[in-house]
Structure formats: structure tokens, C-alpha cells
């Protein structure tokens, strides 16, 4: 089992306010990792470090064995930020056009998309069950459908690691369950490693192979098959209180 993400003794601070302190984390291929914690705990910061958008003041962040800042094989990585759903709703684009932009890292800069790229785009739309709405304007869709389109865009690059920041924010119960079903299939059938950041991973808990609680320090709550999300969250909170 190869290591996909590795954080070694990572320290990060915004000005004089330390957000992450001596954080160590290892994510292996095929893992489904849930990162939870209160507001300001550093959940989004840890993702930005992994994505190479921020550089740690101390420690190392590796992705697929390479330093995250120097990582070039971006097509191996899918990302949906917590702000992605706030796109301009009047933007004149079909879902197929939006998903096709996800092929940019796979095809490369300056290279035009080809027929085979659009085949992958249609496969990604099919995976999230939105192929029949490929020519609909994305701004006119419901929140759940838009989230699926953003997921399809991330999948269009055929990533080995998919990182999602608050993926269920703004979704109703059925929307959340549908999203978890798709993520579960991606992990079990295509072997995609998943990292999910959420305030509350209780609902997604059955999917997780590893749950991480974060509040500046980091605490692992290795998921057992018998654990419910609630038990897992409580265990994490207790462990954090001891850190």
C-alpha cells in the first residue's frame, strides 16, 4: 500500500497565530480519511498545505512522494473547495463545459481538448448520474446537482486522490446520501483515495477508514468497523482534550 499524502512535524502560522503545531499524518492509497474539528482548527489550512497552496514554516508535506509545493502531476489530484458552490450563478456555461474544464490538468496547458477528452467528460457525468443534464446551464441547477457537477469536474482528470472541503454544505439529507453513495463507489470500485473535511463527519462515518480530529494539534481516531460516527467523534473529542 503506497503512501499518498504525508505530513511530517508540520508547523504553520498565520502571523503570530499558530494554526498547526507538530502535525503528522499519513494517508495511504485507498484510504477514506475524514478530518473534523471546530471552526478555526486548521482543517482548510491542512488541505491547502497538501494542495501546495501554502508552505509550512516547519516540517514537510509530501504528496505522491513529492514535495507539495513542487508537485507537478496535478491530474492525479481532484479538489472541491468549500467556496466552489458559490460560483456566479449567471455564468453562461453548460454542465458539460464546466466538467470539460476538469480535463485541463490531464491534457496540459495550450493543448486543445480532443474527442477522447469529451468521452472522459461524459463518463464523469455518468458516474455522478448527470449525463442526461449535460447540456443544461449549470447556474439553473439545484445545489445538489451543482455539487455533482463540481464532483464530475474533479473526476474528469481521473484523479487518484480526491480532496473535498465541506462537500455536503448546503445539501439536504437526500443530497448528502446520494453524494456519499457516489463517493463510496469511487473508493471501492475505482480505488480513489478520499480526504473529506467536515464539521461533522458523523454521517459520513461508515465510509471512513481513518478519522482525524484537528484543533491545532492532531489526534487520530482509527476507525473500527463497529464504531458509529457518534462514538468516533466523542472519542476524538476526548483525545483532543488530553493533547
Amino acid at each position, binding site marked *: 500500500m503506497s503512501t499518498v499524502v504525508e505530513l511530517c512535524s508540520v508547523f504553520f502560522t498565520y502571523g503570530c497565530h499558530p494554526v498547526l503545531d507538530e502535525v503528522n499524518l499519513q494517508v495511504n492509497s485507498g484510504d477514506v480519511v475524514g478530518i473534523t474539528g471546530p471552526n478555526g482548527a486548521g482543517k482548510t489550512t491542512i488541505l491547502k498545505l497538501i494542495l501546495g*497552496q501554502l508552505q509550512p514554516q516547519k516540517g514537510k508535506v509530501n504528496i505522491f512522494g513529492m514535495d507539495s509545493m513542487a508537485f507537478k502531476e*496535478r491530474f492525479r489530484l481532484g479538489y*472541491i473547495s468549500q467556496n466552489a458552490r458559490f460560483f456566479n450563478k449567471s455564468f453562461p456555461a453548460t454542465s458539460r463545459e464546466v466538467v470539460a474544464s476538469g480535463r485541463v490538468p490531464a491534457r496540459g496547458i495550450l493543448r486543445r*481538448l480532443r474527442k477522447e477528452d469529451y468521452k472522459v467528460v461524459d463518463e464523469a457525468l455518468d458516474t455522478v448520474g448527470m449525463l442526461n443534464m449535460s447540456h443544461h446551464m449549470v447556474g439553473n441547477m439545484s445545489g445538489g446537482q451543482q455539487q455533482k457537477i463540481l464532483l464530475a469536474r474533479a473526476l474528469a482528470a481521473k484523479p487518484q486522490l480526491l480532496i473535498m472541503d465541506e462537500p455536503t454544505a448546503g445539501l439536504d439529507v437526500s443530497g448528502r446520501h446520494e453524494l456519499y453513495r457516489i463517493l463510496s463507489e469511487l473508493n471501492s470500485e475505482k480505488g480513489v483515495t478520499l480526504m473529506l473535511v467536515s464539521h461533522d463527519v458523523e454521517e459520513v462515518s461508515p465510509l471512513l477508514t481513518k478519522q482525524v480530529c484537528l484543533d491545532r494539534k492532531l489526534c487520530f481516531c482509527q476507525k473500527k468497523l463497529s464504531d458509529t460516527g457518534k462514538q468516533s467523534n466523542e472519542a476524538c473529542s476526548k483525545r483532543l482534550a488530553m493533547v
Partner: protein
Amino acid sequence: MDIFAYAFMQNAFIVGVVVGVLCPVVGLFITLRRLSLVADALSHLCLSGVAAALLAGTHPVITASAFAVGGGLLMERLRIAYKDYAELSIAVILSGGVALAAVFMGLAGGFNANFMGYLFGSLMVLNSFDMWIIAGIGIIALFLIFLFYKELFYTTFDEEAAQVSGVPVKALGVGFMVLTALTIAVAMKTVGVLLVSSLMILPVTASLRLAVSFRSALLLSVLFSELSVALGLFISFYLNLPPGGTIILTSIAILITVLLVNKKGKVGK
């Protein structure tokens, strides 16, 4: 009276076709990035470029291009420095452009007919040399947009995702600002410095009402723009009206028609 019997009208139509494609293509990206006023700020800087050229005796389009590109780069720096107040950069460049133009015109001894031609557009100031420069810069700019089309689309729709995907977002932003500046500089002879931003925004405004995809928004913008330029040039020639104002008024007429035809528009839904 045959409109194409005159060399300056032939030049005007050739330039009009290039400008009619370039302005709405750049304008669509600017509008969707919510930076419509950028074109206004850069056009005012072009004004100072024209004033400097008339004072120094250099070529107005080339000098205005240099001023606009310099201003565009400065605006991008200011936009990054004041990330939460992006409109500040527009205000600084706009007022700076007008102030520079006023100083240069003062040094040159005031306004003259040539300067007024640049302000509101004049077909009489178009010669073959201008035509080749404008067409050349315009075609290069269009080629660059074609080359970076998918990256520009991705960055415009979701800048953060594009950056994570490895798109050089900052370099693309700077490059696009340069393209915008060049577009304004090459279009100013047809519609005038004060109206050039309208040709970038009005056709896009009409197209957004009807578009069913990004591609259709792009094609409709170009169609409306070309229609405005062609009709505007014909009307201005036969009724002896200023071309810039006529083209823009034609564009406004198209927008009003679209609004009347499509009352349940998509924008602002």
C-alpha cells in the same frame, strides 16, 4: 455614392471586422470576471497615450498600446495588493489616465481635431499603416485567446480550482490584462477612446440574455458586435454621423431589441 469606393472606408471595414470580433471576445471574459470597468480605466489611459503621442510626434496607436499595457500591469499589481478592494485599482488607473492626458494636452497647447478624432472615433484618421498595425495586433490577440481558451474559461469560472489544477493563474491574469489593453488601443480609432469599452460590454450584455452555453454566449457576442460595427459604419457614412457614437447607439438598439424579444432572460434569475 458607393461606400467601398473610398480607401478609408475599406480600411474602416477591415479594422471593424477585427475589432468587432476582438472586443466582445475579451469583453465576455471581463464581464464574467466582474471587471467591466477595467476597460473604462484602460481606455482613459489610452487617452493619455494618444495625448503623449501627439506631443512627442510618435504613432498614437503604438504609444497608446504601451500606455495601456503599462497601466494594465500596474492595475493587476494593485488588484493583488488590495485583494478585497479590487475596484480601487480601477479608480487609480482611471483618474491617473485622465490626469496624464490633461497634462500632456496642456503641454501640447490644447485639444485639436486629431485628438477629438481619437476621443469619439473618426474614419478620417484611419490610414493603411494604421489598418495593418490594428489588424496585426488584433489577429495576434485573437490567436492568443484561442490558444488559452480552456485555461481562460477555467480561471474565469473557478480561479481556485484552476490554480490547484496547475493553471498558471497569476501569469494568465497578467497576460489577459495586456490583451485587454491592446484590444482597447486597437479599437479606439474606430469607436473612440471614450466609447471603446461599450463595444466590449454591450454585445456581451445582449448575448447573456440569450445564451444557452458559454460557446453560444461567445458567438452571439461576436454576432451582435459585428452587426453593430457594420450597421454603424453604413449609417455614419450615409448620414454623415460620427462612427463611434453611431456604432454604440446601434449596439444599444440591438440590446433593447433583445430585451424586448426575450423578457424572461437568463441573467439575474
